């Protein structure tokens, strides 16, 4: 059985669902952050697979850009998390409700 577009889409869908559930159910912001990265990867897979299937290079271009964005986002996001931990000694999102007021 040849590996086709469908397989990639199913894989991407499964990864995206995993990431979404991770964001929704976990309380540790680091884990939530990782879950978001998984969702992002799922999207990258869809881009790459579709690009290949349709013979259009722009999908690859987007994937490259997403890498760059994800790298920058990870750097900034982790830096913020470290700083929050220093201030609060916790990265549990249920404790971080300062914006409510």
């Amino acid at each position, binding site marked *: 059985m040849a590996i086709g577009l469908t397989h990639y889409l199913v894989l991407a869908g499964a990864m995206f669902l995993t990431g979404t559930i991770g*964001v929704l159910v976990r309380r540790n912001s680091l884990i939530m952050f990782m879950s978001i990265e998984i969702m992002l990867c799922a999207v990258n897979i869809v881009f790459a697979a579709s690009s290949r299937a349709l013979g259009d290079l722009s999908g690859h271009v987007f994937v490259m850009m997403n890498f760059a964005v994800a790298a920058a986002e990870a750097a900034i996001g982790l830096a913020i998390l470290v700083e929050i931990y220093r201030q609060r000694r916790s990265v549990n999102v249920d404790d971080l409700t300062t914006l409510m007021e």
Partner: protein
Amino acid sequence: MEHHAVDNALRWIVLVPLIGAAVNGLLVRVMPRRLAGLIGCGTVAISFALSVKVFLRLVEMDPAHRLVEDTIATWLTFGRLQIDIGFAMDPLNAVMALVVTGVGFLIHVYSLGYMAHDAGFNRFFAYLNLFIFSMLTLVLGENLVMLFVGWEGVGLCSYLLISFWFNDEANAAAGKKAFIVNRIGDFGFLLGMFVIGTTMLPHMGAGEGLFSFSVLAEHAGLLAPIATLAGLLLFVGATGKSAQIPLYIWLPDAMAGPTPVSALIHAATMVTAGVYMIARLNYLFIQSETAMLVIAIVGGVTALYAATIALTQNDIKKVLAYSTVSQLGYMMLACGVGAFAMGIFHLMTHAFFKALLFLGSGSVIHAMSNEQDMRKMGGLRKKLPITWWTFLIGTLALAGVFPFAGFFSKDEILWNAWSQGGVGLWVLGFLGAGLTAFYMMRLVSLTFFGSNRASDEVKHHIHESPLTMTLPLVVLAVLSLAGGWVGIPHFMGGANHFGTWLEPVFAHEIVVDAVPHAEVVAHAVADDEHHGAVDHATDHGADHAAEVRMEWTLASASLVWALLGLGLGTLVYTKRTGIATAAHRFAGGIPHRILKNKYYVDELYEAAIIRPAHAVSDRFLFKTVDVGLIDGLLVSGSYTLVAIVSALVRLLQNGMIRFYAWAFASGVAAFIIYLTLSG
């Protein structure tokens, strides 16, 4: 378009006093007094000299086409509406400009002496010059809009000068009253202008100034359908400015201002603006019999009514103020019966003798240490000889004694009232004339005859005024004596130069464009009606002789009547003072009390207009609309609404990231489901 003579001097007549006002006004704190006085008087003198120059040029022109123009710029153009900034001088403008600058100059000189010790000397001259500028804009403006600009300008200056000594609250209140009452009239004036504008607009060609007097005169026939409406609305404006019933109430209060102001603004010039406006737009007014009748009746009634109030006032300036209201009534009466030229004639002579009387009263007040109550005066004849003699001349002129100026103008008005208006109007004017003589002699007797009733300290200070004050008095006295001789009527063998001079302005042929190409030429009523201005050589001999006999009879009657009034006034208030006391007690003193309280008109307005307006403002507009509706419902309501909505929205923003994530995910899920199902 005809080509008219152009003279750039016209703009300088108007602008030079403005420059004086600007210099004195801007440098009011640093200007030395002498220089301020020099600038104040000098600028008006220049205006007067320029007016004379243009006037002499007019004299040399062809009598039928005497018009000099000076257009500075186009003010605004909007479709067919074009309004220019420009000035014009025809015989009527010339008379007005000469009176304004001439009498104005004399009063400026007088003010040098009268205001010499006043702290606001520089400010006073700045205001006076501003007034002269506004008044000249009014009388020289070549269109109705320029006239209106001047009209509002003099109103402002009047307000500023009435409340010149604004530290006293009564003065400030008097200024406010004058301004507000005038605004009521101005509102009518504006509406009248709008009516004229909307009627004329569709007929305007390119480059024709809509409100230009020459254009209005040319197309006067177009105004026929709206003549009554526009005429009455404009007349409302005139009743405000020229102090006629029912808006005269501000003028007596306006005496709160310094006496030169009363002489200049509230006797000689500004208050005559309404008469000038009606004479200027004579071609509009004569097309409406109703408007003319209303003007004549209001004028006649005001003439008599104000004279009765003047009988009982004790403040020397109040007597003169009511006398001014009364004399303005005569001018209106003249306009109302179509004798515009005689209205303007009386305007001019009145400017001379009433300015003289006010300045004389100012000289008396000055001598009496600012006392204005005549009951505390008396016996000033010897101590103030120049004031006394000039005042007497002014009184005789006002009373209409031959050969003083007032005799000719007032007599012509009465004759026209008789021959064109009917006996009723004549009786009003005739009775008023007798009362005028009587109250003036009462004033003179109380002030100059008998013994002095002032306190010893005041008596000690009594002195004749300085030369700057007496010189204008003498000049005005000469004018009050001889000023009427330019208009000696035909029946006395005179040439009536004054009427002839103004004749082209008032003898219009109004072309009624009822149907295009079928023009009907209607002769203006004024053409036939104002006897004084038209040569009656063509009349049938017998009618003419009868008319002349009638004129002689009426003139003699009014002369006798005036002398009677003068004699009676002297008798009652010097020798037989018992008669006055008896008159006060007549019928339980009720008539005297009514007159003394000016027919309770101020109280009537207070009760009928001011208090209801206050009540409505307070109870409805303030407590219901402002507090209830605006503050309560709109202002408080909007912030209450925001508070409620925010309280609801705040529940969503709880700071729980996982709540947001769930909301976000469910939203996306719901959206996808929706898209799938609606597919």
